[in-house]
């Protein structure tokens, strides 16, 4: 089958903070050396040879090569910061690569741009045209599909109202409706399934299926949701720290991704008090996260019960209790549980805390341990000593959007037909 996109040795170097070197003098020097003397850019080669890269540069992508066949649904997975968005931005020509080349056939559009260029003061009608043009549609194309777009969005009655009066749902629906009618040859979808209500998501997924199967278009699909990836894609690529970690049939790549996650640091230990973190009251001996899995290679998902075990040296005779805090990636504390307080004498003390299965929602979490004297004075805070990635798991649910909330408890929930 013919290839729709071919990516060869794509690399992207970002400079942190400022464009160029940040100083006018350095910029001039760099320009002189690389453009006039025709030598290699001194800053560029320096950054490349030097793996530990000065803090000013970061390789967002490194020698990424892959190709996507025509009519294929190609998944791209990877943790946050793996370079997925950089790749998509290069593909949509928003940024240019540092090295490498991408070749392709046909129009490429991305659903990461939904609502781009929407202006609050303008009516829905005006915005459909404006947004359509920003996305590369021609006037006739938009005119031809106008009714269809309005119909799909379900905002007929408000089409001449400024979009600032729209509810957020209406706004998103209108924005998506334009994007969904683009008919590009290659479509990039980045987590759009996270927007809108369930009914709307169903519509979007339906549209995606229709686009890929009936119309034979190529789709690049980026998501954190492994189930959605597995269900929708033929092939996938796993990006890790800007490099291709795995590429191939979707089941294989998803497995690599999920088992890779397990290799996260789930335990720490220190041999002597001197090197251990702590202070004159407390020194940490070990902390460990133990997931209770049927099969050790399974990923931690929302059903998995977790045990946190820890040991520490107590250096004074005091009354102690330990608090365990679980925070979301945003830094927000989700909950804080405390052990009972006891009078302890010097020596090693061990403790453990259980987090039940079917409690945390999918996502990344950090665990901190806080040591407290007399149930009131904080002695030491072992901040973010453990991290967990909880994967999603769903049964009999035809919805692939991000499940909202930090916790996802399985409370008893009954529903039945009332007999009349």
């Amino acid at each position, binding site marked *: 089958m*013919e290839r729709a996109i071919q990516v060869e040795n794509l690399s992207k170097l970002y400079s*942190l903070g400022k464009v160029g070197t940040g100083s006018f003098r350095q910029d001039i020097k760099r320009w002189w050396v690389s453009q006039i003397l025709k030598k290699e850019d001194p800053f560029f080669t320096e950054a490349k040879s030097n793996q530990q890269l000065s803090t000013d540069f970061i390789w967002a992508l490194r020698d990424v090569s892959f190709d996507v066949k025509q009519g294929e649904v190609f998944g791209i997975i990877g943790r946050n910061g793996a370079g997925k968005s950089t790749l998509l931005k290069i593909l949509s*020509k928003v940024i240019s*690569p540092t090295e490498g080349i*991408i070749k*392709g056939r046909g129009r490429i559009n991305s659903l990461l741009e939904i609502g781009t260029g929407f202006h609050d003061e303008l009516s829905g009608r005006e915005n459909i045209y404006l947004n359509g*043009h920003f996305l590369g549609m021609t006037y006739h194309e938009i005119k031809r599909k106008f009714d269809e777009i309005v119909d799909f969005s379900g905002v007929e009655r408000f089409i001449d109202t*400024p979009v600032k009066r729209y509810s957020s749902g209406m706004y998103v629906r209108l924005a998506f409706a334009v994007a969904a009618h683009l008919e590009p040859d290659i479509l990039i979808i980045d987590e759009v399934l996270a927007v809108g209500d369930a009914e709307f998501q169903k519509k979007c997924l339906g549209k995606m299926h229709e686009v890929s199967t009936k119309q034979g278009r190529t789709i690049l699909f980026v998501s954190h949701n492994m189930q959605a990836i597995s269900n929708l894609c033929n092939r996938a690529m796993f990006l890790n720290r800007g490099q291709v970690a795995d590429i191939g049939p979707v089941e294989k790549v998803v497995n690599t991704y999920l088992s890779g996650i397990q290799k996260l640091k789930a335990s720490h230990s220190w041999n002597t008090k001197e090197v251990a973190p702590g202070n004159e009251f407390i020194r940490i001996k070990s902390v460990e996260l133990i997931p209770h899995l049927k099969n050790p290679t399974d990923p931690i998902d929302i059903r998995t019960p977790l045990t946190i075990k820890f040991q520490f040296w107590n250096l004074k005779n005091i009354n102690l209790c330990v608090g365990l805090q679980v925070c979301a990636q945003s830094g927000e504390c989700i909950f804080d549980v405390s052990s009972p307080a006891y009078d302890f004498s010097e020596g090693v003390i061990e403790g453990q805390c259980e987090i039940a299965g079917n409690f945390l929602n999918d996502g990344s979490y950090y665990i901190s341990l806080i040591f407290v004297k007399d149930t009131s004075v904080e002695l030491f805070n072992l901040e973010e000593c453990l991290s967990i990635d909880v994967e999603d798991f769903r049964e009999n649910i035809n919805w692939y959007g991000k499940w909202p909330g930090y916790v996802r408890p399985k409370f008893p929930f009954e529903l039945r037909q009332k007999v009349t």
Partner: protein
Amino acid sequence: MKTWDWSIVPESSWFNWNLKELWEYRHLLVRLIRRDFLVHHQQTLLGPMWIVYQPIITLITYVFIFEKAVGLSTDGVPSYLFYFSGIIVWNLFSESFIGTAFTFTQNAQLFEKVYFPRMIIPFSVVATHLIRFGIQLILFALLLAFFIFTKDFEVYPVRWLPALLTTLILAPGLGMGLGLIFSLLTAKYRDLVNVIHLGVRLLMFATPVIYPLSIVSSDIQAIVLFNPLTPVFEFFRYAFLGNGMFSYLQLLYSLVSMIVLIVFGSMLFNKFGSKLQDVL
């Protein structure tokens, strides 16, 4: 196997003026102009009339300050006509310049998300201000008509067309060319924003906007003549108001300056415009 339709490569060239692509995006250009008018008029208190009020209020201020208070000469031309012509031509230049110079700073969010030829933005800015100039020109025509019929003001209609064309090309052209160069500088060194506003204000005094070139003493006339905007204003006034100092050589100098600025500006714009997004 078919050949590829497009490719994305690291370097953008100096001369990558993809005019065909620009043409393909012409509808976006039209929409952007339309957006600017719609938004501007829905947001302001006075609505669409603002385009007209702004120069009128400026005109009254100038007449009071420069004519009545300072007693600046207007070369024997009725002061209202003199200042109004200066104001509208200056607006055309300065707004084109400022609008273009902030291309990247004002559209940063948009540029992060979608690709379209970035040159569309400066073109839409210039087109918007050309239309505004057109509206203000009607006002100028009314004012001129008033002086013709009530004060027997002498006019030379045969000069109108060449002067109008010259102004319509040179004023926004110089503004855009200069703006293209500054657009990259403002994107890179954000503190230049204030410098630009100050610079525009100072440049106005080095341009015969509120004074005729004829009253400038010969020692500093060279400075004013070095400014390629000078012949544009003088020619406009010569054609419409009958008084102005310019030569065809000076107009040629302005034209060459404009071409140099636009070519150089576009080269920089195309070459470095795509690199501006590489900041984290």
